């Protein structure tokens, strides 16, 4: 692996992520988020996962961005100035991040052929699936056979999301909303 | 009828009665007949168990295994027999009385009243015959819940507040303390069965026993040990028949009965007697006896005074249990019956006065004995029994309690009993004296409560307008219980014979 590409890509990813966090304009944030996904996809292909990279580019950078842009056109594209200092979120995030970094210390190094992930389960896919399934692309083979039920579940997720969007946006509904309920509900 | 069938019948009959009452709600006469017939049948069923128990048998019935090793089960032993007899017998009398009272008062929702009353009696039967603490607790809670609609019968703001106190204290103590004590006992002893000699001996340190005893004593809120007595005066907002049967007999006796049973069959008399761990409970009970009597003195409302009197009298029984001597336990147990007859008579009289004269305050009852001689005579008899004077049943239980105190070498409690008796005289006798020997106040013009009371049973041709007795159903009932007070004095030996096995297994 070319570690120069690796470092450059990661630096770019970091740059875009921080940019998104700092941006006020939602439109630009959406575009930069698309770029972020694209960079992620590049990194994935560098890490030998072209199938995932394609999907991420199409779904993450493509569909997601389009969805956000459509939403922006239906709502608003400017974020308001925050009114409170985000101290608590910062603390939570820092603790979570610190915990994760603590967790990496004992992890196998990137690309280590002796890592447990490369010794257990995966070898069988690599060795047996050409005979058992007969598809050269291992990702496809595993996706369609060994872990086919995840794929079924994935389809169900798409169905759910579709139904959800139909429920939420299908036809203009008028909500029956009573102002007096609000006051009384607060004891 | 086999004994176990009789046990099932005793618990189920009142429920059937309740169903009948509801289905006959359109025909009040039939409805009341249903109550009475159920009461009669129940008493017959309970009575059919008596020979078995007297002959030393302990009829049992196991219903269902709730958790592994924990059954919903019944087993009749002398103490439970006594309680069941008293509660079921007095139910008939109270139903008779209720007919007169509820109709005389034109109470609303009478169907609901009779139905919940029957359910409460079923719960009381369950408490009386419970074979283990789990069953006891189940029916104890059922009793609390089924009497709640009776206490709040009038659905007024005042009734609702009283209901809160009632439920708050009874559920609070039972869930907070009693349940904890029961589960703790189960954890220590591995069983919850009532066994002669107790199940806790040798399972725990002394401090645990003391804590458990405290949890049991205060957790049984129905026993109205101070400071958890407030529910009883609050419950007086209920119609008088409720106060009479439930809050002088079934509910409160379920409380002291539970404590007695726990002392005898869970701790075991020997454990408490030998270690002297219940001494603090004796003092607590003594405090309640005296303090409640003193409070009773200050109450002008008759039912309130009777309620505090009940609180005081209940602690006699707790005291008897805490003495953990055979005479103490016997005295306490006998007092369950003695006090029941005495106090129910007093409540009946209070209700009768209210029905006829609409008077609740003692200060208004001047000369009432002249217009209601039978009622007030019965009141006098009941009062004597409560005070503990011969020839009333109450004399015996006090006698045994005093013996028990001596047996436990705690003479101070003999003194407590004496002082308490004096206080009883002080708060009961003035009522009688005022009723008979003070001239009635002139009815104020326009005050037609008294003069025009339409419900009275007019007795005697010459008595004419001056004698206005209670409705005849009420009169019959209160005469019967007053007679009971007398009879118990003469038949105390039978009671003694019945109860002896609990201390000499």
């Amino acid at each position: 692996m070319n570690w120069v590409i690796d470092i450059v890509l990661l630096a770019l990813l970091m740059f875009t992520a921080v940019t998104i966090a700092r941006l006020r304009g939602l439109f630009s944030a959406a575009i930069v988020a698309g770029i972020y996904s694209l960079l992620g996809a590049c990194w994935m292909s560098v890490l030998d996962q072209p199938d995932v990279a394609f999907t991420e580019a199409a779904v993450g950078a493509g569909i997601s961005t389009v969805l956000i842009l459509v939403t922006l056109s239906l709502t608003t594209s400017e974020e308001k100035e925050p009114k409170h200092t985000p101290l608590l979120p910062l603390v939570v995030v820092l603790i979570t991040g610190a915990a994760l970094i603590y967790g990496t210390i004992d992890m196998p190094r990137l690309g280590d052929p002796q890592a447990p992930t490369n010794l257990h389960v995966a070898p069988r896919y690599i060795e047996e699936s050409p005979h058992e399934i007969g598809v050269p692309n291992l990702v496809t083979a595993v996706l369609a056979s060994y872990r086919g039920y995840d794929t079924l579940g994935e389809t169900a997720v798409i169905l759910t999301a579709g139904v959800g969007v139909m429920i939420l946006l299908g036809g203009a509904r008028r909500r029956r909303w009573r102002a007096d309920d609000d006051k009384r509900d607060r004891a | 009828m086999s004994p176990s069938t009789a046990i099932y019948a005793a618990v189920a009959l009142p429920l059937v009665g309740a169903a009948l009452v509801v289905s006959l709600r359109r025909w009040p006469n039939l409805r009341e007949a249903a109550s009475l017939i159920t009461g009669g049948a129940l008493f017959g069923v309970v009575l059919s168990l008596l020979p078995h128990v007297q002959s030393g048998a302990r009829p049992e019935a196991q219903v269902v295994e709730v958790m592994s090793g924990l059954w919903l089960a019944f087993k009749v032993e002398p103490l439970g027999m006594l309680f069941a007899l008293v509660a079921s017998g007095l139910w008939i009398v109270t139903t008779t009385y209720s007919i007169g009272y509820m109709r005389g008062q034109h109470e609303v929702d009478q169907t609901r009243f009779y139905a919940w009353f029957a359910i409460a009696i079923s719960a009381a039967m369950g408490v009386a015959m419970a074979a283990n603490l789990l069953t006891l607790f189940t029916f104890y809670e059922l009793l609390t819940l089924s009497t709640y609609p009776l206490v709040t019968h009038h659905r007024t703001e005042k009734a609702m507040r009283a209901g809160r106190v009632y439920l708050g204290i009874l559920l609070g103590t039972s869930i907070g303390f009693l349940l904890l004590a029961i589960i703790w006992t189960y954890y220590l002893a591995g069983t919850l069965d009532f066994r002669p000699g107790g199940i806790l001996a040798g399972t725990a340190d002394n401090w645990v026993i003391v804590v458990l005893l405290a949890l049991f004593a205060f957790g049984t809120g129905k026993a109205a040990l101070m400071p958890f007595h407030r529910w009883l005066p609050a419950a007086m907002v209920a119609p008088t028949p409720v106060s009479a049967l439930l809050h002088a007999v079934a509910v409160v006796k379920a409380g002291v009965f539970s404590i007695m049973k726990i002392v005898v069959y869970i701790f075991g008399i020997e454990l408490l007697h030998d270690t002297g761990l219940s001494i603090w409970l004796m003092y607590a009970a003594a405090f309640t006896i005296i303090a409640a009597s003193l409070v009773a003195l200050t109450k002008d409302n008759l039912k309130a005074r009777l309620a505090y009197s009940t609180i005081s009298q209940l602690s006699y029984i707790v005291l008897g249990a805490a003495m953990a001597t055979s005479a103490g336990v016997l005295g306490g147990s006998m007092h369950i019956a003695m006090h029941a007859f005495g106090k129910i008579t007093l409540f009946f009289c209070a209700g009768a006065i209210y029905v006829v004269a609409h008077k609740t305050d003692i200060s208004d009852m001047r000369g009432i004995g002249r217009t209601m001689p039978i009622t007030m005579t019965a009141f006098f008899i009941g009062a004597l029994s409560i005070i503990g004077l011969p020839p009333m049943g109450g004399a015996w239980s006090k006698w045994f309690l005093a013996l028990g105190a001596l047996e436990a070498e705690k003479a101070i409690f003999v003194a407590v009993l004496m002082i308490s008796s004096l206080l009883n005289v002080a708060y009961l006798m003035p009522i009688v004296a005022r009723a008979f020997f003070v001239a009635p106040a002139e009815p104020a013009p326009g005050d037609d409560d008294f003069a025009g009371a339409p419900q009275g049973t007019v007795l005697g041709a010459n008595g004419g307008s001056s004698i206005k007795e209670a409705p005849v159903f009420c009169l019959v009932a209160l005469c019967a219980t007053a007679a009971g007070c007398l009879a118990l004095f003469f038949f105390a030996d039978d009671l003694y014979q019945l109860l002896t096995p609990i201390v000499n297994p």
Partner: protein
Amino acid sequence: MIDNHLPILQILLPLVAAPLCLLLRHRVVVTALAIAVTWVTFAVSVALMATVLQQGPISYELGGWPPPWGIEYRVDILSAFVLVLVSGIGAVVATWSPASISVELPRYERHYLFYCAYLLCLTGLLGITITGDMFNVFVFLEISALSSYVLISMGQDRRALTAAYSYLIMGTLGATFILIGIGLLYIMTGTLNMADLALRLQDVADTRTVIVAFAFLIVGVSLKMALFPLHLWLPNAYAYAPSAVTAFLAATATKVAVYLLLRFFFTVFGYDFSFDRMQLWIVLMPLALIGILTASLVAVFQNNIKRMLAYSSVAQIGYMVLGISFASVSGLTGGVVHLFNHGLMKCTLFLAMGCIVYRCGSVHIDEMRGLGRRMPWTMAAFVAGGLSLIGVPMTVGFISKWFLVKAALEQGLWPVAGVILFSSLLAVVYIWRVIEVAYFEEPLAVDGQGPVREAPLSMLIPMWVLVAAIFYFGVTTELTAGIAQQAAASLLGVVP
């Protein structure tokens, strides 16, 4: 033949029925389909339970690929127990729902979408429970989560939308945390199968990575099950969702999360790791206790009764976690049996609320005046559920409390036992507020519609089936506490 394929049938039935709803569209047909499918699903879960009780755990290899290479469905006593609860509640609520949603969902012709989402949610919850594969958990978690966000958003009040949105954010964060946890475990072991994972974790249990994975899984699941203080999404979600949705989710969704917690603690990481090495109870027990007390207290001050019951749910989840944190057979039995029992009683209570919404349009405490006379059966069901929540004997709530208190005493933690019982008293307060209003106050003057009537039989009957269950399982506990005890014993790896 069918017998062998029960596990997959359990999932496929609702999963296939969901898109069918989209195709059929006709309101009556879809409703009938949903009701029929949920009942058959329930029958399947009961059959699975019977099989597991007879033959021991079932392992089902999806697509014929043996684990750990393929995905395994694994049904043991615990998962069968939860399956029965989830599918049973699913069936009862589906049967109850038609009348309710015809009032609460404004657009009549879109009922098929509701049932589609409902069946997907059921599929997701059942899938989480039955699977033996970590990643499969994540996938089905998302199915159930996405559909429940949508279902909640269907509420009449506009706050249903914001409630669904915050649930979505919290839920997705939770799911992502779980995903991170799964990833870290995968990194350290190379496997995703739970049983295989349990074996392989033994060697690497000391690594920091595994400990961090453990923490992330717990936090993720705690978010999902609304463990105090991560419960903030729950009250609004339950208060503003359509009544049928509230009843279903309150009785199942958080329970499945608790199930997941049990799976992670005991099956994947094992008792030694979770409780001996990590001393988990030090964190769990205080959180559970504080949650029980605060949520019960807050519940007392709510005027929207659905919201009140929602806070009560947070408290009840505290009970379950408390039971788990004892890590003893009694404690786990208490936790597991409470999972089941609380499902029964909370579902009953929310169904009663649904009946009231159906007739009165609101569950504000003022609307409930005089309902004791107007809707006697509905209110009686509420009282039954309420008594069970309090823990009155002969109801299921008593059984749960019994085991929990016993477990606390076994470990000498009598203050904890005190807290359990004290919070029962808080339950008395908030339940009795409703009872007093319903039975003591005069009904509100009705504006021109005539007096409020009792709910229709189509709602009363399913609700009373649950009431009957509350009392039945409150008296004989062989099927609940007995099974829970076996499940607890097998989780702890001891012979009962």
